[in-house]
C-alpha cells in the first residue's frame, strides 16, 4: 500500500524525467507515456480512496535538532482532492493528445504536464509545510513552462514570466508565514507538519493572537499568489497565453485551487475556533469577496473567450477564498470540487471551439457554432449552467453553501456574493449568446466543424460531473470534505435563484442576436474592459519603483562604493605617498635641513618625552 502511494509521486516524475532526458525526439511516444501515467495515477487514486491508508514519510533533510520530511498524508481530504487532480488531469491529457496533435514540441509539452502532475500530487499529499512549499514552487515552475510553451511569442514569454514572478511575491509571504508558524508552534520537527500543528493547538497553548494572526495572513499571501487573489491576480488572465488544455487543468481546475486547498488545510490544522480569535483574519474573506467582484466586473466586458473564462475563474476562486475565510472550509472546498469539473469542461469546450475555429479566440468573430459543433455546444451550455448555479447542477449546490456561509457571518459579503452570482450569469450567457448562437461573423468560424472523438470524450465525461458532482452520494463520498447538501429554504436560495434570473435576463436583453457590443462606448464598461487599469498601474510600479530604483542604486554603487569609498582609500594612500615624495626634492640642502629637523625630533622624543 505504501509503495502504491509513493507511485503517485514517482510515476509522473519518472515520466517527466524520461521525456526530458530520453524521449524528446519521439514526440508521440512521449505523449502516450505521459497520458498513460496520468491514467495510472487516476486508477491508483481511486484504489487508494477505496482502501484504508496510513501516512508514510522519509527524512529529506536531517539535522541534529530538526528533521524535514517528505511525507504523504493520506487522509480522505487529500485523497479526494487527488481525485480531482488526477481525474481532470487524465481527461486533459486525453484532450491534449488531440489538441496538441500538430505541435512541434509535443514532447516538451507532455513532459511539463507530467511534471505538473508530480508537483500537484506533492502539494495535495504533503504532510508538512516545507514539503508543500517545495511542490508549491514546482507547480509554479510547471505553470511557467506551460504558459511559455510557445515561447517564441513575446506575449507568451512575458506571461510566463509574470506568472512566476507574481507567484514568487506570494511565496515570499508564504515562506515567512511558514517560518513564523513553525516558531510559534514550538520550533520542532513536528511543528512543520500538519499533524504536529493540530496537536499543538489542541493543547490550548499560549500564543499571541497578533503574531499567529500575522503568520496566518502571511501564509494566506501564498494562497493569494497561487489562487490569484487581488492584488496578485494579474497573472492569471495573462496565463491564458498557454495552450488551452493547460488553462483547463492548471489555471482553472487544480493549481489555482491549491491556495484554497492549502488554506483549508491550515484552518483545519489550527482549528477554526482558534483562527476566529486571531488578529486580522477578517481581511481574508474580504479579499476573496473583492476579488470575486472585481473579476466578475472585468469578465463582463472581455471579448476573448479564454479571458472571460479566466476572469470567471478568478471570481469563483474569490468565492472559495471568501468561504474559507468565513471559517467555512467545507463550503469552500465543496465549491472547489464542483468548480474543478465544470470549469475544466468550459475550458476544454472553449479549447474545442478555438481548435475548430483555427485559433480564433474573439467571441465577436464566432457565432452560430451551435449548428456546426452541436455536441460541444451542449456540453458548453451545461457547463455554463453549472457555473451560473442553475438549480440541480453541481454549481447550484456548492454556490448555495457559500451564500449560506456569507449570510450567517457577514451581510455585506452576502450582498457582494449575490451580486457576483448575478454578474456570473450575465457574462456567461453573454459569451454563450455571442459565440454559439446568433449569426456567424467570421470566415474562420464559418469553417468550424465538430471536433474528434478524442476531444469529445473528456467533454462528455466532464459534463456528467458538472451535472452530478454536487449531488449527495457523489459529494458526500468524493468531495474532499465529504459535503452533503441539505436543503435550506431561505434568503440564500432566493438570492441564488433571483440572481440567476436577473443575470440571464440582462444578458438576453443586451446580447441575444447582437451584432456588436452595445456597451462598447459605455465609459464604465470601458473601465471594466481595461481591468480597472490595474495591469497598467503595476507596469508603472515596476518601471518606477523597481527599475528606476535599481538604476539609481546601481549608479550609486559604482560611483560611491566602487569609486569614492574604496577608490578614495587608494587615492588617499597615493596622495600621502606623493607628499612624502615631495620631501624628496633632490636638493642636498633641503635634505640636510630635514636631517636637522629629524635630529631635533628624535632627540626630543628620546630625551624629553617620557
Amino acid at each position, binding site marked *: 500500500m505504501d509503495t502504491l502511494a509513493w507511485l503517485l509521486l514517482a510515476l509522473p516524475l519518472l515520466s517527466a524525467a524520461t521525456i526530458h532526458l530520453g524521449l524528446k525526439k519521439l514526440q508521440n511516444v512521449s505523449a502516450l507515456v505521459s497520458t498513460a501515467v496520468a491514467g495510472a495515477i487516476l486508477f491508483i487514486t481511486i484504489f487508494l480512496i477505496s482502501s484504508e491508508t496510513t501516512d508514510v514519510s522519509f527524512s529529506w533533510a536531517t539535522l541534529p535538532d530538526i528533521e524535514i520530511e517528505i511525507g504523504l498524508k493520506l487522509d480522505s481530504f487529500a485523497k479526494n482532492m487527488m481525485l480531482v487532480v488526477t481525474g481532470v488531469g487524465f481527461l486533459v491529457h486525453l484532450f491534449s493528445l488531440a489538441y496538441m496533435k500538430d505541435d512541434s514540441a509535443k514532447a516538451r509539452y507532455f513532459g511539463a504536464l507530467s511534471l505538473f502532475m508530480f508537483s500537484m500530487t506533492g502539494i495535495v499529499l504533503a504532510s508538512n509545510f516545507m514539503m508543500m512549499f517545495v511542490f508549491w514552487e514546482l507547480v509554479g515552475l510547471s505553470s511557467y513552462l506551460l504558459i511559455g510553451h510557445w515561447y517564441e511569442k513575446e506575449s507568451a514569454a512575458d506571461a510566463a514570466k509574470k506568472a512566476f514572478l507574481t507567484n514568487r511575491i506570494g511565496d515570499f509571504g508564504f515562506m515567512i508565514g511558514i517560518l513564523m508558524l513553525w516558531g510559534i508552534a514550538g520550533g520542532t520537527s513536528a511543528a512543520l507538519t500538519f499533524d504536529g500543528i493540530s496537536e499543538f493547538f489542541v493543547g490550548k497553548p499560549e500564543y499571541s493572537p497578533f503574531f499567529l494572526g500575522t503568520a496566518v495572513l502571511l501564509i494566506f499571501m501564498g494562497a493569494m499568489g497561487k489562487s490569484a487573489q487581488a492584488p496578485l491576480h494579474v497573472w492569471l488572465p495573462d496565463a491564458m497565453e498557454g495552450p488551452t488544455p493547460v488553462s483547463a487543468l492548471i489555471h482553472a481546475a487544480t493549481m489555482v485551487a491549491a491556495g484554497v486547498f492549502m488554506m483549508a488545510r491550515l484552518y483545519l490544522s489550527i482549528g477554526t475556533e482558534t483562527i476566529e480569535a486571531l488578529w486580522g483574519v477578517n481581511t481574508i474573506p474580504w479579499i476573496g469577496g473583492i476579488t470575486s467582484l472585481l473579476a466578475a466586473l472585468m469578465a463582463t466586458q472581455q471579448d476573448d473567450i479564454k479571458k472571460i473564462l479566466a476572469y470567471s475563474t478568478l471570481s469563483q476562486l474569490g468565492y472559495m477564498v471568501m468561504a474559507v475565510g468565513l471559517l467555512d472550509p467545507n463550503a469552500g472546498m465543496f465549491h472547489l470540487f464542483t468548480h474543478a469539473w465544470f470549469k475544466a469542461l468550459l475550458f476544454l469546450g472553449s479549447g474545442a471551439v478555438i481548435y475548430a475555429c483555427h485559433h480564433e479566440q474573439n467571441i465577436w468573430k464566432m457565432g452560430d457554432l451551435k449548428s456546426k459543433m452541436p455536441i460541444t455546444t451542449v456540453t458548453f451550455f451545461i457547463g455554463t449552467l453549472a457555473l451560473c448555479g442553475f438549480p440541480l447542477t453541481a454549481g447550484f449546490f456548492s454556490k448555495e453553501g457559500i451564500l449560506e456561509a456569507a449570510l450567517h457571518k457577514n451581510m455585506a459579503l452576502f450582498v457582494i456574493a449575490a451580486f457576483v452570482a448575478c454578474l456570473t450569469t450575465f457574462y456567461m450567457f453573454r459569451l454563450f449568446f455571442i459565440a454559439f448562437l446568433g449569426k456567424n461573423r467570421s470566415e474562420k468560424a464559418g469553417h468550424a466543424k465538430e471536433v474528434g472523438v478524442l476531444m469529445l470524450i473528456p467533454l462528455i465525461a466532464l459534463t456528467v460531473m458538472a451535472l452530478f458532482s454536487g449531488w449527495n452520494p457523489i459529494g458526500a463520498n468524493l468531495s474532499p470534505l465529504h459535503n452533503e447538501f441539505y436543503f435550506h429554504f431561505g434568503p440564500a436560495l432566493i438570492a441564488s435563484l433571483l440572481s440567476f434570473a436577473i443575470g440571464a435576463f440582462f444578458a438576453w436583453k443586451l446580447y441575444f442576436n447582437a451584432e456588436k457590443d452595445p456597451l462598447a462606448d459605455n465609459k464604465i464598461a470601458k473601465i471594466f474592459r481595461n481591468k480597472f487599469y490595474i495591469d497598467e498601474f503595476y507596469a508603472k510600479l515596476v518601471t518606477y519603483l523597481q527599475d528606476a530604483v535599481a538604476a539609481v542604486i546601481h549608479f550609486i554603487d559604482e560611483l560611491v562604493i566602487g569609486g569614492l569609498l574604496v577608490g578614495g582609500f587608494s587615492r588617499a*594612500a*597615493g596622495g600621502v*605617498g606623493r607628499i612624502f*615624495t615631495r620631501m624628496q626634492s633632490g636638493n642636498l640642502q633641503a635634505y*640636510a635641513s630635514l*636631517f636637522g629637523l629629524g*635630529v631635533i625630533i*628624535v*632627540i626630543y622624543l628620546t630625551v624629553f*618625552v617620557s
Partner: protein
Amino acid sequence: MPAHWLEAYVVLAGIVLLMLEAFLPRKEKFLIACLGIGALVFGLVLLFWAEAPENNKEMTRFYAWDSQAKFFKGFALLAGIMTLTLCLDYRKILAKFTANPDSDDSTGEYYCLILFAVAGMMWMASAKDLVSLFVSLELTTITLYILVAYMRRNVGSLEAGVKFLILGAISTGFLVYGISWIYGATGTTSLAAIGETMSEENSTFLLFGLALILISLAFKVGAVPMHLWIPDVYQGAPTPTTAFLSVASKASGFAVALRVLQPFFENSITAEKTTFIVAVLAGATILVGNLAAIPQTNFKRLLAYSSIANAGFILLGIAAWNSKGDLSAFQVTGFYLSVYFLMTFAAFFILAAIHRDSGSDEIAAFEGLGTRNPALAFLTTIVIGALAGLPLTAGFFGKLFAFQAAVGASLWIPISLGFVGVAAGFFYYFKIIRAMYWRKSLKTSPVKVRPLSFYVIAVLTGLIILLGFFPQPILWLLGA
C-alpha cells in the same frame, strides 16, 4: 684560527688583488672579480674554522665572537660574493662611464673596493666598543663613497656620490658627537660597560648620546628621518653598488644597531624610552617607505623605497626587543635580513638583466616580459610576490616574525601602520606584475638573460620558495 684574522685576510686579499690588477692585461680585468669571489668563498670556508680570540686580551675588549658576529660576517661575505657576481654581468655598463669606455680597463679597482667594504662590515659585526665600531663603520662608508661615485663619466653616479658623501659625513658627525656624549656620561667606550655604569643621573646624557648615534645608524639602515639619501643614491649608483648598499650596508647597520641598543634595551632605566623611540622610527619608516613607493615609476627607485620600508619592518622587530615572543630581536632581524638578501639580490639581478636589454630602469621596461621571456617573468613574479610578503614565499615569514615579535611587545600603533604598509606594498609591487603580463610592449623581441644571471636568479627564487615552505633552516643558522 682566531676570528679576527678573517678581516685581516679579506683586507689582505683586497690589497693583493689591487696590486695584481696593475699587471693584468686590459681585457682580463674581470678576472679580479672572479678571484675576489674565490677569495670571499674561501673566507666563508674559513669562517667555519674560526674561533674566539680568547688568548688575546686586547682583542677581546674590542672584538665580539658570538652567533650574531658569525652570522653577520657570513652575511657580509655572501653579499660580497653576490655583488661581485652581479658585477660580472654588469661590467660593460660600468666600463661605459669610466675613463676608457670601450675596455674593462678602469673596472678592476671596483672589485677590490668591494672586498675592503666587506672587511669593514665583518669588523662591524664584531665591534663591541665604540672606537672599533666607529673605525670599522667608517672603513665601510668611505669605501662606499667611491663605489657609489665610481662611474665618473656619469652625472647621475656623481650626483649620487656627492649626496651620499655630504649626508654620510653629517651622519658621521652625529655619530662621533653621540659617542663623545656617551663617553662623557659613562667614562668608557665599551658597550658592555655602558650598561653597567648606567644610572638615573647619567641616563639623560646617555639618551642624548643614544639619540645622536641612532640618527647616524638610521642613516646607515635608511630609516626615517635619515632616509632621504636612499632613493637618489640608489638610483644614481651603479646597480651592483646599489645592491650592495641595500643589502650588505643595511645589514651591517643593523648589526651595529643591535650591539649599540643592547645595553639600552636591557637596562630597566632606559628600556621603555628606547623601545618608544625605536618604535616611532619603525612606524614612520614603514609608512613613508611604503606610501612614497606608490607613485614611483622607476624600478630602481621603487626598490629604494622598498628597502626603506623593509628597514621599517626590521626596526619593528628590534623595537620588540623585550617581547614575550619566542624569537630574540637578533633572530627576527637575522631572519628578515636573510630573506631580504635573497629577494633583493634576485630583484637587482633581474633589474640588471632588464637594463642590459632596454637600457632603462623604468617599470615600463618590464612591459611585455610575460611574452618576451616567460621564464624570467615567472621568476620575477615569485620575487615580487616575496617582496610583497605573500605566504609560501620566504618574504611572508620575515614579516610574520617581525609582526609576531611586535605583538608580543604590544606595539599596536606601529603594527597597524605595518599592515597599512603591507597593503600599500601589494599595490606598488603588483604594478611590476601588471606591467609584465597585462601591458603590451612596443618591442616584441625576446629578452635575453645571460646564463650566469639566470641561474643565480633561479637559485635565489628556488630558495625563496623553499624557505617559504620550510623556514626552519635559517633559524638553525641563527641558533634557534
